[in-house]
């Protein structure tokens, strides 16, 4: 196997690849990247047995062949090469080391046998659709903060992607992304892309979401999504990300979304989130609540720490609107910020009482809905 590629192209591909490769070194081959030159095309593959990433590169293929080399080391080397360098990879086959040359730099890397490199079986992926990269990005960004890290409820460790029946005022079924950790829930939807109609509801693991999100950074075109009940595959430009899905049942989240919360508070996002940040600064303890004391067109945010002291900020008429009965309710500051970070301009809270789940919406974007559990204050 022999190829020539410019440093920038190779670096970009290796950056995608190396973050998937296993770092914990329990199975050595999983720390390696599979390099294949076949019929004039180069492909790089990494897998941790849960996720596999394959990237195709248009390169100056010189000689067909394949080998595997440590992904992290290869990435570090290429990263440190000078800009504009041309990199040559040369492997004579078998156990022979992989030679990497660039200008007057040369290295020789130990390889592991290609036959030992595990291939993740995909099986058939009967459902497929295309979705614009910015739309998929929106689904992910506005839900992933709510993904749980709790191991015991593994079925919450991802985003639940599924088809939702049309609700009142909606033209047809929607593609929905939902995540929750029990304390907060994020539900974002978009028009159902053609071809997605019959797809099963699937839970996409957090690591997959994070890897996918990195790929979407640079993408503007459509992303191809193909899936079965156990696997999902995203094709973003020249990169193909395949992942196992979480084998579990996502909770019936619709039952916990309150329908009748009628105490409506509206406040500018920036006013609100800045005030939360200032008030919460009194306490380093993340679990301390920020208290919202709400009265007619008045919102007082306050927080107290037994060691540090107290803090308070008022937002009054002109900046908040509220005309229901007075209410006091507490939330974790970080949870408030995670939600308001997703909101462009104006935030709408719909409360029931100080112990019941609160609904939060982006006034300008009906596609997103958040639910937040209050804390005792």
């Amino acid at each position, binding site marked *: 196997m022999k190829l020539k590629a410019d440093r920038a192209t190779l670096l970009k591909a290796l950056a995608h690849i190396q973050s998937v490769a296993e770092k914990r070194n329990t199975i050595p081959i999983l720390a390696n990247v599979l390099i294949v030159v076949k019929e004039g095309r180069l492909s790089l593959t990494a897998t941790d047995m849960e996720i596999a990433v394959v990237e195709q590169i248009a390169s100056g293929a010189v000689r067909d062949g394949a080998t595997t080399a440590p992904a992290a080391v290869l990435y570090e080397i290429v990263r440190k090469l000078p800009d504009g360098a041309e990199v040559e990879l040369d492997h004579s086959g078998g156990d022979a080391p992989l030679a990497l040359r660039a200008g007057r730099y040369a290295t020789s890397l130990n390889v592991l046998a290609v036959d030992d490199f595990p291939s993740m079986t995909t099986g058939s992926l009967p459902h497929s659709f295309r979705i614009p990269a910015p739309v998929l990005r929106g689904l992910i960004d506005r839900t992933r903060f709510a993904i749980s890290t*709790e191991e*015991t409820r593994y079925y919450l460790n991802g985003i639940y992607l599924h088809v939702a029946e049309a609700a009142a005022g909606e033209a047809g079924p929607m593609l929905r992304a939902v995540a929750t950790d029990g304390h907060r829930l994020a539900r974002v939807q978009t028009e159902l892309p053609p071809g997605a109609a019959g797809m099963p509801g699937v839970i996409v693991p957090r690591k997959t979401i994070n890897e996918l999100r990195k790929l979407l950074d640079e993408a503007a075109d459509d992303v191809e999504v193909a899936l079965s009940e156990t696997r999902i595959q995203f094709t973003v430009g020249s990169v193909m990300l395949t992942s196992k899905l979480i084998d579990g049942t996502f909770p019936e989240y619709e039952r916990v979304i309150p329908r009748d919360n009628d105490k409506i508070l509206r406040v500018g996002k920036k006013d609100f989130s800045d005030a939360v940040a200032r008030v919460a600064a009194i306490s380093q303890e993340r679990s301390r609540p920020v208290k919202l004391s709400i009265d007619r067109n008045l919102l007082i945010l306050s927080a107290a720490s037994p060691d540090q002291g107290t803090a308070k900020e008022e937002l009054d008429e002109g900046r908040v609107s509220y005309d229901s009965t007075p209410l006091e309710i507490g939330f974790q500051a970080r949870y408030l910020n995670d939600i308001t970070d997703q909101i462009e301009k104006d935030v709408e809270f719909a409360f029931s009482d100080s112990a019941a789940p609160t609904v939060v919406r982006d006034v300008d974007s009906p596609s997103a809905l958040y639910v937040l559990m209050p804390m005792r204050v």
Partner: protein
Amino acid sequence: MPDTPVLCLDCQHVEPAADAASRRCAHCRSHRLVRHAELLDLTVAHVDADAFYCSVEKRDRPELAALPVLVGGGTRGVVTAACYVARMRGVRSAMPMWQALKACPDAVVIRPDFPKYTAASRALRGLMQQLTPLVQSLSIDEAVLDMAGTEALHGAPPAAMLARLANRVERELGITISIGLAPNRLLAKLAAGLDKPRGFGVLGADARQWLAGKPVRLLPGIGPAQEKRLATRGITRLGQLQGLSAREAQALLGDDGPHLAARARGEDGRRVDPARETRSISAETTFNADLADAASLERHLWQLCEKLGGRLRDGEASAGGVVLKLKTQRFLTRTRAARLGTPTVLPERLFDAARQLLVREVDGTAFRLIGIGASPILPLQDADVADLADPSMPRRVAAQAAIDRLRDRFGKSAVQRGRALDQG
């Protein structure tokens, strides 16, 4: 010898400057006198119930008073607690039951009744809280009290109030306690051990000299491993640590060295903090025959989860996570832990979390013991609150409350979950 203050443990009479030669209380002629130069000035107390579980059992069955009593389980179990009669015959807690019975064949073995002990512990705590709000429970039978500033309130020095507490506990709860009075928590704990049971130990400025001649093992926190490590450096007595400067101690003993040297001198800066109780709430069982299969282990685990849920509720606490403990046939202990999203006291939720930990350990190994504990321990009011990922939570809470009500009225076996029943 200058005259020192003396306190009578029976009538709480205080003689601020008693004749050093007096052997009996000037008031009631009792010989249970405590004498110490700083007796009237010290404010930190350590209270330790004597052979707590056994004392509670003897209180309820007076005919056992003179007999050796062991609280613990089955022939394969271990001694959870031994009364002083049994201790004089060489029985120690944590000793395997068969070994204890060899030393003490006439011992009366009683299965532990934790709800009873918890109730007694709570009553004891209530009495202590009448002396000062600064009561920090360290375990079911131990607590430390900060009584600084209470003399004005009670019109008596802490020492006298503590002696009164000991009498009240004997009268009202039917058990005995030992008390240590000192300037800090470490010395108070050591003082409480000075003449157990029914003891009243005092350590003050004399503590450093007293500690100097003691073996290093005396310090809480120095276990057999640390003792061995110190011995390799020629250190066996606390006196050898006392003189070390912080720098020397660190060079000799590592990062923990300065701390160790300070404690060897009897210094301890820990405050009494009622909010910082380091309780552990758990339940475990030793099998009659070793078990390796998942189904049998899970059945035991379920029963333990029910017990743990009850103990958490009794202790007004909840579990922020669970710790699973398994002991293999070869006495190797495996512990595995998992955090919960929201704290719980529901047996079902404890079980769900613990079972996931258990499943990974079922690998053909034969186990002799399984246990489950709550960690961290959180306030009860945070438990099983509405959870966005568990719409059935209110129903589960209501179901458990119904079960508890039935059991309160008709006994433990009145209602059983299907999973508690033996399939075999």
